[in-house]
């Protein structure tokens, strides 16, 4: 800025346009400095995308049904393998987190329980953990 320049106007700021913006996917998923709700948001995203991926897979697999009994039954025998069962546990976790956090997001989004949303999140997660435990035991033992 020369001596003659007068005033400071918004578009000028700094010539190099430096900012502290945290851009893109790195800024979006950066866990540092996040608080409880921030982690819930990140996890909600990840579980949502994960479940979406599963559903796509699920729909493709269901097409085997159209090919008749042998194609389907061949797949079902594969689905009983321990690896698949572990995958089921991860899926249940994703569904539980996304669903339970979704209850919180929906309620507060309609202006309900906003003041107690943090406690609600904790309570829902406790419920989720219990259900996940029961479901895991069921899946891994009963199959």
């Amino acid at each position: 800025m020369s001596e003659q320049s007068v005033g400071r106007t918004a578009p000028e700021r700094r010539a190099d346009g430096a900012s502290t913006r945290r851009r893109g996917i790195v800024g979006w998923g950066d866990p540092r400095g996040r608080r409880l709700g921030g982690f819930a948001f990140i996890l909600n995203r990840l579980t949502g995308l994960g479940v979406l991926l599963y559903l796509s897979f699920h729909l493709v697999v269901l097409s085997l049904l159209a090919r008749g009994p042998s194609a389907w039954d061949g797949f079902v025998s594969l689905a009983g393998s321990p690896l698949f069962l572990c995958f089921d546990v991860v899926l249940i976790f994703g569904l539980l987190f996304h669903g339970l956090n979704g209850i919180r997001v929906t309620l507060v989004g309609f202006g309900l329980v906003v003041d107690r949303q943090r406690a609600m999140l904790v309570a829902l997660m406790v419920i989720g953990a219990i259900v996940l435990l029961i479901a895991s035991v069921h899946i891994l033992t009963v199959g």
Partner: protein
Amino acid sequence: MRGSAKVQMSQSASAPHVVIVGGGGTGGAVAHDLTLRGLRVTLVERGELTSGTTGRHHGLLHSGARYAVKDRESAVECIEENRILRTIAPGSFEENDGLFVAITEADEAYEPLFFESCLASGIPARRVSRAEALRLEPNLNPALRCAVQVPDGTIDAMRLPLRFFATAKRNGATIKPFTEAVAMTIAAGVSGRAVRGVSVVDRSSGARYEIGADLVVNAGGPWAEKIAALAGVDVPISPSPGVLVAVRGRYANMVINRLHASGDGDIVVPQRELSVIGTSSWLAADPDHLTVPADHVAMMISEGSAMIPAIAAAAVRATWSAARPLIGERGATSGRELSRTFKCFDHAADGVEGFVTISGGKATTLRAMAEAAANVVCGKLGIESPCRTREYRLAPHTAYYA
């Protein structure tokens, strides 16, 4: 610099250029005043605006009642400026009024003199009974004896001065925060030495450059002595710090003052969701090295809780010190004495032309200080232009960021 500058140059390019050193309330108000009088103005501040004493004060808009008994001139000045600020800067105050509360017998004995002095100073004071005071402010010490209501108020210590900067900028002044004055250019003039410019360092880039000036105004507050030293002159201004304590919770809606002869820890200013208690005073050597002594903090809490007992148990949000610019009597006080409350020094008397120091005063009187300084500046530069800041409505503080 974009050519389509949104700034209308109301100042002609040939108008004298004044550089103001110091971006506190005084500097901002001087920039505003001089800009309105048609001068070209550049203000430099080493840090963020209002980062010195201005931002750190408790946020009291004085009614003048505090000075009514002992310093009538200050009291009159305060109530006048109080009225002017409410007119030119609506929205920057809480119109919450102030309550002077008498707690002890001695306080009560002081009340008639206090009340009469307020009225004599033109301060619209109202006697408030004990019962009414407790109804207005239920957190007050129930032992209080009587109270007087006066038009004190809460100011935003940063945003009110920022409105002066915003208005000055809008009217064409150049405001340069993070720009530190490091030297003065002194030239041999007709009648001795003369300040011809200021060398500054832009702290955001490290660049050092010189700003030419027809006159330099030193508005450094407690740093005024350091800035004057750059021009080789001495001003008798010493930093006089005081401790302030902010507690969580708004324990009163009005400004609560102790009704007694001025002392330490005698005010509680509600500020947003906080209550700010002030203040002590001592003399410091360097305004950059202020301490926050534990015994001062303890005294603030105990004096504050004498008026509002709940303060004793309140959670402390922050403790800090702010340095007033105290005008001493050492050396020959040169220049013109404009008021007992603040002083404007024309350093021509010290053999340096083109250099003026404005200091002392208080947040409430920033506009009046600027008017006095601008009168001196215009007189020296041979400019005949009346002060317009009494009526000129200030832009909102947000306009500074436009």
